[in-house]
C-alpha cells in the first residue's frame, strides 16, 4: 500500500523533472553501452562489431527512453497537456468563435451561479444559528387578522413556556415595533432616529447568538422596574458610535431614558434578514412582560427543541397546551381563547417560516436558469458542429496518421473543457459583481438576502456545471466528427458535398430544440410578467402615487387620560394645520399604522342588536387615524370623515371598511348604525372601500378605524398628499415639525409608492430575473437559427449560383431560404408551445389573475418568437439572393 503511494508521488515529481531525469538516463545508457563494448572487445571483436553487438543487445535506445519516461511519469497528464497546448493554439487562431463561445457560456454559467447562490442562501443553507434545525416558529397558520393572530399575550407566553416540556428554551420578540421607534438624544444637535426591537430576555441565548462585546441580557433585566439596558447591532455600533471599543457599560439616551449598553452583537447576526426581510435593526432592548400584561397579543413565539424531540411531538404537545393558555390570567373567561377550528397553533421550523413561501418561486427560477444553460449548451454544440465541418479534413488527416478515435474525442473534449472553464471564470466574475450588488439591495424584501455570497458550495456548483456543460456540448460533435470516413473526407475537396448535409440535419434538430426551449422560457416569463402587471393594476383602496409619510414624535405627557387626549388633539391639529399650510401640500392626515406595514387587531366588535354564531365574526385590523387621513391616503369614503369635534366628551365613532360592513349589515347601508364592543356603543360614521392592508396580492380582510381623539394611537405616521415630488417637500415638512417639537428626529420621508414597491419586490425580483433569462434564451435561439441558415447558404453557394444561372430569380432564392427558416422556427415553436402548456400548469400557483393557458400571452410570445426567427433567417436569405452566379461558379 505504502509503496503504491510512494510510487504515485514519485511519478508526479518526475513529471516536473523531465529534463534532469532524461539527462541522467542518457548518461546511464551511455555507460551501459561502454560496458558492453568493452566486454565485446575483450571477446576479440573489432571495435565496430563490438559496438554493433552492444546496440543490438540493448534494443532500441529511443524505445528504452520512451518506456522509461512512461514508467516513471504520468503519460495521461502528458497527453492532456499536449491537447491543452494544441487547443489553446487553435482557439487563439479562431478568435471570433472563441469570443462568442466564452461570452455565451459566461452569461449562462454566471446566471446559474447567481441563481444558485440565491437559492442556496434562502432555501438550502441552514439559518445562520447553531443547530438551527432545532428552532421552531410557534403560531397559528397565517390569517386575515394579521400579526395579532400570529402572536401571544404576555400571560399566554409565560404559560406556554411553563407548560411545554419539548423545548430547551422558548423566546420571542415584540411583533409590533415600527421603524424609527427609538430616538437617540444627547449625541449632536438633533435627535437621531433608530429602530429597536424588544426581545424576551433569553432571545439571543435561545437562538445561540454570542455577543461580540460585553454580554447578553440577564433575567433580572426583564423584571418590572429594572434599569433599561440595550444591545447594539454591529452596524449601528460602527455607524453611530464609531465602533467605540469601550461602549459597554456606557449610558445612552433612548427616548429620553438613559439606558446602559450591555453589549454589541456580532456582525453575522442580522435580525432583519431573518425575521423581517429588508429591515435594518439598530438596537435590542429587553422586553419586560410584567409591564405589558394588558397589551394583548404582542409577542411571537420561537422555541428551540430539546435534542431528539421531533416537530411532530412538539406539535402534539402544543395542541394539548394551547387550550390552557389565557389571554389574561386575571380574566378567567379569556382562558382557552387560543386555538379553535382553523386557528390551532401550527408549528413550523423557523427555516420554513422564513423561506417556505418562496420555495416554489425559487425552484421555478432555478429551472428557468437551468433551461438557459441547456440552451447555451445546445447553441455551443451547434457552433462546434459548424466548426467541426470545417475541420473534417484536419481530423481525417490525423486519423490517417494513426490517431485513435478515443484520442480525437479526448482532444475535442479538452477543447470544450477549455471553453467551459473560460466561460465559468467569466461567469464567476459576473456573478461576483451581481451578488455583491444583490447583498445591498435592502429594497428587495427577500429573507437572508443580505447574507448572500459565493461560498464553497457555489464554487463547487460552478465547477460541476462547467464540466457537465463541457461534456454535454463537446461529446456530440466529438463522436460525430471522429466517426467520419477518412477516405471520403480526404477526397472531399470542397464545400457543398454530402458530408455537409449530414451535419446540417443534426444542426437543424439542435436549433429546433433550442427554439422550443426558448419558447417555453418566453411563455413562462410572459405569464409571470402578465401576472406582475395585474398585481400592479390591483386597486389597493388607496392612491400610493403623490403621497409620502414621515414618523412624527410628540410629547403627550399629562396627568390624566382625559388631559392626555386633549393635549394630543391639540398637538395633532397644530401639526396638521402647519403642514397643510406648506406650499404644495394638498392634504394631510395621521395614522398610527400604514397599510402594508405593521398591523394589529383588538377584539371583535359586533353590530348592535344582532347575534352571530361564535367564530363567524371577523376580528378587524385596527387603525387609529386623525381627520384628513382618508383624504391624504386617497381612500374612498362613503359617509363622513372623523372631525376634531369627535372627542372623549362626544359620542364614540368609528369607520369600517366595505367588507366588514357587508358582514355586519348585509344589503344595508352601515352608515349611522351602531357597533358594540361590549362596554360602549360605537356609531359608524363612514364606510371606506377595502384597502390592501396586509398584502398586495391577497384578498383584503376587515378593517376598523378609530379617531385618534378617542383612542390612543401607538405612534404617529404623518401622511401628506402633494402634486410635487414627495422628496421636494421633505425639508420643509421636517422644518415645520422641528419648530413644533425640537425633539423631532430626522426621520425618513418615505413615499407611499416605495411601501407598495417593497411589498411587491419579491415578485418584481423573480419576474425581472425570469424575463432576463427569457430574453437571453431568445437571443441564443436567434443566433442558432442565424447560424444554421447562414451556414447552409454558405454551403450551397455553388448550387444557388447554378440555379440562378439557370433562371431562378432573387425572389425564388429568398423564398426558398425563408421557407427553410420557417420550418425550423415553426417546428420549434409548436413543440415549445405544447411544453409551455405543461409548464404553465406547473407554475399556476405563482400566477396572479392570469390563467396558465392565457391566450394573449401565448399568442404574443409566439408572435415575438416568429418575428425574431424571420429576421434571423432574412439576413442570410438576402445574402443568398444577392449571390452573383458568375462569382459563385468561379469560386471553386
Amino acid at each position: 500500500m505504502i509503496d503504491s503511494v510512494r510510487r504515485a508521488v514519485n511519478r508526479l515529481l518526475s513529471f516536473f523533472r523531465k529534463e534532469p531525469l532524461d539527462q541522467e538516463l542518457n548518461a546511464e545508457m551511455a555507460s551501459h553501452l561502454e560496458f558492453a563494448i568493452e566486454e565485446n572487445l575483450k571477446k576479440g571483436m573489432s571495435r565496430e562489431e563490438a559496438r554493433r553487438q552492444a546496440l543490438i543487445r540493448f534494443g532500441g535506445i529511443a524505445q528504452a527512453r520512451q518506456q522509461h519516461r512512461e514508467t516513471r511519469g504520468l503519460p495521461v497528464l502528458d497527453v492532456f497537456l499536449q491537447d491543452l497546448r494544441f487547443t489553446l493554439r487553435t482557439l487563439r487562431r479562431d478568435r471570433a468563435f472563441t469570443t462568442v463561445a466564452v461570452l455565451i457560456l459566461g452569461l449562462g454559467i454566471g446566471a446559474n451561479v447567481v441563481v444558485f447562490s440565491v437559492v442556496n442562501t434562502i432555501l438550502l443553507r441552514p439559518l445562520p444559528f447553531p443547530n438551527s434545525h432545532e428552532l421552531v416558529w410557534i403560531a397559528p397558520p397565517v390569517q386575515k387578522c394579521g400579526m395579532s393572530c400570529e402572536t401571544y399575550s404576555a400571560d399566554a407566553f409565560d404559560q406556554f413556556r411553563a407548560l411545554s416540556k419539548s423545548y430547551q428554551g422558548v423566546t420571542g420578540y415584540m411583533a409590533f415595533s415600527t421603524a424609527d421607534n427609538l430616538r437617540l438624544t444627547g449625541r449632536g444637535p438633533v435627535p437621531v432616529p433608530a429602530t429597536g426591537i424588544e426581545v424576551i430576555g433569553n432571545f439571543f441565548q435561545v437562538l445561540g447568538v454570542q455577543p461580540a462585546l460585553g454580554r447578553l441580557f440577564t433575567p433580572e433585566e426583564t423584571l418590572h422596574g429594572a434599569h433599561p439596558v440595550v444591545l447594539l447591532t454591529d452596524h449601528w455600533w460602527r455607524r453611530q458610535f464609531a465602533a467605540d471599543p469601550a461602549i459597554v457599560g456606557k449610558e445612552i439616551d433612548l427616548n429620553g431614558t438613559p439606558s446602559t449598553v450591555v453589549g454589541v452583537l456580532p456582525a453575522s447576526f442580522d435580525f432583519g434578514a431573518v425575521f423581517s426581510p429588508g429591515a435594518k435593526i439598530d438596537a435590542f432592548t429587553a422586553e419586560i412582560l410584567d409591564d405589558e400584561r394588558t397589551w394583548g397579543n404582542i409577542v411571537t413565539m420561537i422555541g428551540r427543541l430539546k435534542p431528539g424531540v421531533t416537530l411532530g411531538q412538539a406539535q402534539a404537545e402544543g395542541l394539548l397546551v394551547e387550550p390552557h393558555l389565557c389571554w389574561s390570567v386575571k380574566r378567567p373567561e379569556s382562558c382557552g381563547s387560543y386555538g379553535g377550528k382553523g386557528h390551532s397553533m401550527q408549528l413550523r421550523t423557523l427555516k420554513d417560516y422564513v423561506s417556505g413561501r418562496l420555495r416554489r418561486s425559487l425552484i421555478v427560477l432555478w429551472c428557468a436558469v437551468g433551461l438557459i444553460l441547456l440552451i447555451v449548451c445546445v447553441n455551443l454544440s451547434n457552433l462546434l458542429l459548424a466548426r467541426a465541418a470545417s475541420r473534417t479534413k484536419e481530423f481525417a488527416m490525423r486519423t490517417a496518421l494513426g490517431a485513435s478515435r478515443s484520442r480525437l474525442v479526448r482532444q475535442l473534449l479538452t477543447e470544450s473543457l477549455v471553453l467551459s472553464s473560460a466561460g465559468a471564470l467569466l461567469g464567476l466574475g459576473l456573478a461576483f459583481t451581481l451578488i455583491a450588488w444583490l447583498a445591498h439591495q435592502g429594497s428587495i424584501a427577500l429573507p437572508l438576502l443580505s447574507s448572500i455570497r459565493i461560498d464553497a458550495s457555489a464554487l463547487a456548483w460552478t465547477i460541476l456545471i462547467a464540466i457537465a456543460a463541457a461534456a454535454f456540448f463537446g461529446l456530440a460533435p466529438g463522436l460525430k466528427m471522429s466517426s467520419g470516413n477518412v477516405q471520403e473526407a480526404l477526397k472531399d475537396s470542397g464545400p457543398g458535398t454530402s458530408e455537409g448535409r449530414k451535419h446540417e440535419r443534426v444542426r437543424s434538430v439542435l436549433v429546433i430544440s433550442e427554439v422550443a426551449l426558448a419558447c417555453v422560457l418566453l411563455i413562462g416569463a410572459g405569464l409571470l410578467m402578465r401576472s406582475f402587471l395585474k398585481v400592479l393594476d390591483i386597486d389597493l383602496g388607496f392612491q400610493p402615487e403623490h403621497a409620502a409619510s414621515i414618523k412624527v414624535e410628540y410629547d403627550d405627557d399629562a396627568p390624566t387620560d382625559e388631559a392626555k387626549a386633549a393635549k394630543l388633539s391639540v398637538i395633532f391639529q397644530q401639526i396638521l394645520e402647519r403642514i397643510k399650510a406648506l406650499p404644495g401640500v394638498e392634504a394631510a392626515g395621521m395614522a398610527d399604522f400604514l397599510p402594508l406595514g405593521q398591523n394589529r387587531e383588538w377584539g371583535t366588535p359586533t353590530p348592535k342588536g344582532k347575534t352571530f354564531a361564535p367564530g363567524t365574526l371577523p376580528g378587524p385590523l385596527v387603525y387609529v387615524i386623525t381627520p384628513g387621513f382618508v383624504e391624504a391616503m386617497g381612500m374612498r369614503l362613503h359617509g363622513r370623515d372623523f372631525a376634531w369635534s369627535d372627542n372623549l366628551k362626544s359620542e364614540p365613532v368609528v369607520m369600517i371598511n366595505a367588507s366588514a360592513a357587508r358582514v355586519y349589515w348585509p344589503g344595508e347601508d352601515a352608515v349611522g348604525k351602531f357597533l358594540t364592543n361590549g362596554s360602549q356603543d360605537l356609531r359608524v360614521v363612514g364606510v371606506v372601500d377595502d384597502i390592501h392592508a396586509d398584502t398586495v396580492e391577497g384578498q383584503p380582510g376587515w378593517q376598523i378605524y378609530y379617531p385618534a381623539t378617542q383612542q390612543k394611537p401607538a405612534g404617529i405616521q404623518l401622511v401628506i398628499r402633494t402634486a410635487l415630488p414627495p422628496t421636494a417637500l421633505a425639508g420643509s415638512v421636517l422644518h415645520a415639525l422641528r419648530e413644533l417639537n425640537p425633539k423631532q428626529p430626522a426621520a425618513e420621508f418615505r413615499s407611499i409608492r416605495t411601501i407598495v414597491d417593497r411589498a411587491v419586490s419579491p415578485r418584481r425580483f423573480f419576474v425581472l430575473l425570469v424575463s432576463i433569462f427569457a430574453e437571453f434564451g431568445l437571443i441564443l435561439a436567434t443566433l442558432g437559427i442565424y447560424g444554421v441558415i447562414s451556414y447552409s447558404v454558405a454551403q450551397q453557394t455553388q448550387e444557388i449560383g447554378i440555379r440562378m444561372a439557370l433562371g431562378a430569380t432573387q425572389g425564388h432564392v429568398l423564398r426558398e431560404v425563408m421557407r427553410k427558416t420557417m420550418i425550423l422556427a415553426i417546428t420549434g415553436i409548436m413543440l415549445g408551445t405544447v411544453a409551455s402548456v405543461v409548464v404553465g400548469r406547473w407554475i399556476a400557483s405563482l400566477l396572479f389573475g392570469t390563467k396558465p393557458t392565457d391566450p394573449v400571452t401565448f399568442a404574443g410570445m409566439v408572435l415575438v418568437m416568429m418575428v425574431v426567427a424571420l429576421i434571423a433567417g432574412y439576413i442570410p436569405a438576402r445574402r443568398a439572393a444577392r449571390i452573383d452566379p458568375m462569382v459563385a461558379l468561379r469560386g471553386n
Partner: protein
Amino acid sequence: MGESKLDLLQGTLDLMVLQTLAAMGSQHGYGIARRIEQVSGDAVLLNQGTIYASLVRLQQRGWISAEWGTSDNNRKAKFYAITAEGRKQLAEDAAYWKRLAGVMGRVLSMEQEGGNS
C-alpha cells in the same frame, strides 16, 4: 535453430532484478542485465534497455536505491542496491512464484497423463 527465447511475463523482470541485486549486492544496470542473461542461460529474450524501466519502477516503490559511483575498471556508472523493504518484497514475491510454478507444474503434468497422444 534451438528453442526460441522466452518472452518475459509482465512483472517477472522486476522480480529477477530484485533477486539479482539480493544475490550480487550493489550492481549497475549492465551488470544486472548480463547476470540475468547468464543465469537464464541466455534463454530469456531480454532487450537490455528494458531493464531501466524496471529499475525506475522499483526505485519509485522504494525497493531499491541508486547511487552514482565508479566501477572496478574506473568507469562512472549508476549502482543499484536492494533495500530492506525490497528484501521483504522479494521474499513475498519469490514464495508466490514458487507456489505458482509448483501448481502450474502439477496441473500441466496432469494433462499429460490424461492425454493419449
